[in-house]
């Protein structure tokens, strides 16, 4: 019983990281038909954001608040990845709607650039650049729109960008002078230290639950609930769904489809950033951290099917539980005296990477019976 519960918990923990990482990808794929190969790099940006925030909170002035840096890191990571995602949508992906394979290749190019960017640009300057971008795009939304009408508009726009650039330079300079660790370019992996309350485990009924895992599960639940509320209950969610179903009709009804695209992509990318926070709590962060999660995300998307949040959730947990079951060789402990050839087979697959091999094989087998994933769409439009 205890064994079962423990393995279930482990599976759910693995699954929730996977879900967190795949959620944004699945949303963007389901709603816009775009597979974003740079998704892993957006996760990486979120993880690095967490790292920078953590270093900032180590400064003497902020030391007392160190324990709640994660709470700051989550929205910040959301914004950072979201802004980079929106930038990506506006500059590249927008030109490629309707040709998903080309989008795949272009986003791969973006992911290469982002990887090399974090390798060769010091984090302090990257942070400054991102702040400048955020404020440059954000200021026109915050300032009264009247300012942007008339003859002065150009001047004000110029001014807001100049101000943003100034902000960015200040942040970059400040960070670079205060925190030695992020002042130079560094390709090494970095480690995010969890705050005190997040270390150790929670003892309950003879079992220990590692706290970071619990925190991630809570984060995932909140993210899924938030996303499903947003898509199904809010006005913009309804608009997003409308555009998904019939773009030209939505356009005619006065829905700003371009804004919807930006919003969808921004949210999907932002969720990648939040996933980055979760990932940074689990292990060290490097330029390649995204790559190690992206294939898991693909499996979730393939297994879960398109355009269905429940499919994504179920697929993540199924893959998580299976990975844990196979990877930790739990079948052996449940059934210790199984026949020798079977036992050696179980042992053969009892590593994380071999478990992935097995899970992939199982998914391919599953697809023979349900080619469109767990929750396929039906109707005349499917193969239009």
């Amino acid at each position, binding site marked *: 019983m205890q064994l079962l519960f423990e393995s279930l918990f482990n599976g759910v923990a693995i699954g929730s990281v996977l879900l967190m990482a795949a959620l944004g990808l699945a949303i963007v794929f389901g709603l816009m038909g775009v*597979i974003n190969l740079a998704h892993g790099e957006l996760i990486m940006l979120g993880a690095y954001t967490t790292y920078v925030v953590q270093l900032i909170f180590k400064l003497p002035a902020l030391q007392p608040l160190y324990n709640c840096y994660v709470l700051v890191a989550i929205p910040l990571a959301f914004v950072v990845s979201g802004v980079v995602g929106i930038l990506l949508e506006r500059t590249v992906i927008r030109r490629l709607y309707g040709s998903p*394979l080309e989008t*795949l290749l272009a986003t791969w190019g973006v992911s290469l650039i982002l990887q090399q960017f974090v390798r060769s640009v010091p984090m302090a300057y990257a942070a400054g650049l991102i702040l400048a971008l955020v404020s440059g795009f954000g200021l026109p939304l915050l300032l009264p729109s009247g300012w942007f009408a008339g003859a002065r508009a150009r001047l004000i726009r110029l001014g807001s960008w100049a101000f943003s650039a100034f902000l960015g330079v200040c942040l970059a300079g400040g960070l670079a002078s205060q925190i030695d660790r992020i002042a130079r370019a560094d390709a090494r992996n970095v480690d995010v230290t969890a705050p005190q309350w997040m270390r150790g485990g929670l003892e309950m009924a003879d079992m220990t639950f590692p706290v970071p895992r619990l925190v991630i599960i809570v984060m995932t639940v909140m993210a899924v609930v938030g996303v499903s509320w947003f898509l199904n209950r809010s006005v913009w969610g309804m608009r997003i769904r409308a555009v998904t179903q019939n773009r030209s009709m939505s356009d005619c009804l006065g829905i700003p489809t371009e804004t919807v695209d930006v919003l969808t992509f921004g949210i999907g990318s932002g969720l990648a950033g939040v996933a980055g926070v979760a990932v940074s709590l689990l292990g060290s962060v490097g330029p390649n951290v995204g790559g190690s999660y992206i294939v898991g995300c693909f499996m979730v998307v393939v297994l879960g099917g398109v355009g269905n949040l429940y499919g994504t959730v179920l697929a993540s947990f199924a893959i998580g539980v299976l990975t844990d079951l196979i990877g930790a060789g739990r079948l052996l402990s449940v059934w210790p005296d199984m026949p020798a050839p079977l036992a050696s087979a179980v042992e053969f697959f009892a590593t994380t990477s071999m478990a992935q091999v097995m899970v992939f094989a199982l998914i*391919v087998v599953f697809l023979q019976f349900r080619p469109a994933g767990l929750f396929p769409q039906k109707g005349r439009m499917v193969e239009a």
Partner: protein
Amino acid sequence: MFQSLQQRRWLLVCLWVLIVAAIVAAPAILPVFRLNLLGRFLSLAIVALGIDLIWGFTGLLSLGQGIFFALGGYAAAMYLQLSNAGDLPNGIPEFFGLYGVKELPFFWHPFASPWFTLVAIWLIPGVLAGVLGGLVFRNRIKGVYFSILTQAALLVFYNFFNGQQKLINGTNGLQTPATKLFGQYVGSDLMQRWFFWVTAVVVILIWALLRWVVRGRFGDVLIAIRDDEPRLRFAGYNPTLFKTLVFGLAGALAGIGGALYTVQSGSASPQFMEVPMSIDMVIWVAVGGRGTLVGAILGAVVINFAKSLVSEALPESWLFIQGGLFILVVTALPEGVIGWFRGEGPGNWLNRLGYCLNILGNWLIRWGNALIRQSTAFPWLNSLGINTLGNWLIGWGHALNSVGIVRRIGTYPRLELEGQVEVQP
């Protein structure tokens, strides 16, 4: 008409003579290091040809060709390891000793035979590709789904090969330079030169094979699958069968490329199956021009040469360049360089150039005219020949403009040039 055909034939003959001469002469001109690189890139061109067949013609974007590439490479490396293992303790390759393996794993045995290996190099990857592809295509999984499944498969194989130290030496892979073939070390200059020639000949043979495949009705079916697969079913064709076949063929080509690459690079290792490598293969085809076989070959060779040159000079910048290349090709040059040349690209470009020159010429006319007017007041300006210069440039601008327009007309679909009347059905 006939004359132009004759001219083109002459051009083709000249081109072929040049190519053959270049291949024969390359070892004499290039230093060994560069020759070896060229040989490797030509073997990558074989993989690119396969990708062009499945992506450029059939519309299947595989991000997992590295699997088949590696399988071919491993097959070749296993043969070389075995054929030289006779003098070693236990009579098995050296690395097994590191992991305490005393006996050759069962699947190594057939690779002692050179004939089996020669077949296995293309048959094993081909059959695996066919089986995997068939399982996927059977269920009408296509488009992006297919691409990400192939990438997942790639990672899975990578993990698998990486983890099997006792079977295939894991991460380290199998080394070949110190093994002997026909009594010569594989890594020696003489052997490398031969490998280069073999690779060049194989590239040409495969190019000819694929040209034959895509030129006929079979190729038309592939294009039809790319453009409208469901429609093709209603015409009585079974797209699954065609897709499985070409995916298998592309897998076999990747295997051949992998084997030739392995003997020239010195090892077969799981690095062949890293995710970036397989996506790079796609970009060679995209840059060269998908749907054009020559484009795939040129793309693979030129980009890899660029990569090795840039990486030698500025190691940091290659990823930036490569990333930019991905974005640029996909957004600005979707047909690739060769496709651009065959299409309206040069015509448009010449046209635009002519247009720009025309503007420049007109501008100079105005300037010249103004100067003429001024020169009535200031006669010394005339002696500088400004007028002549202006008129000369105007002439050039007009000339180039007409060149651009003529070139562009050549690229239009043939309209009623033979005095046909537009017939409505």
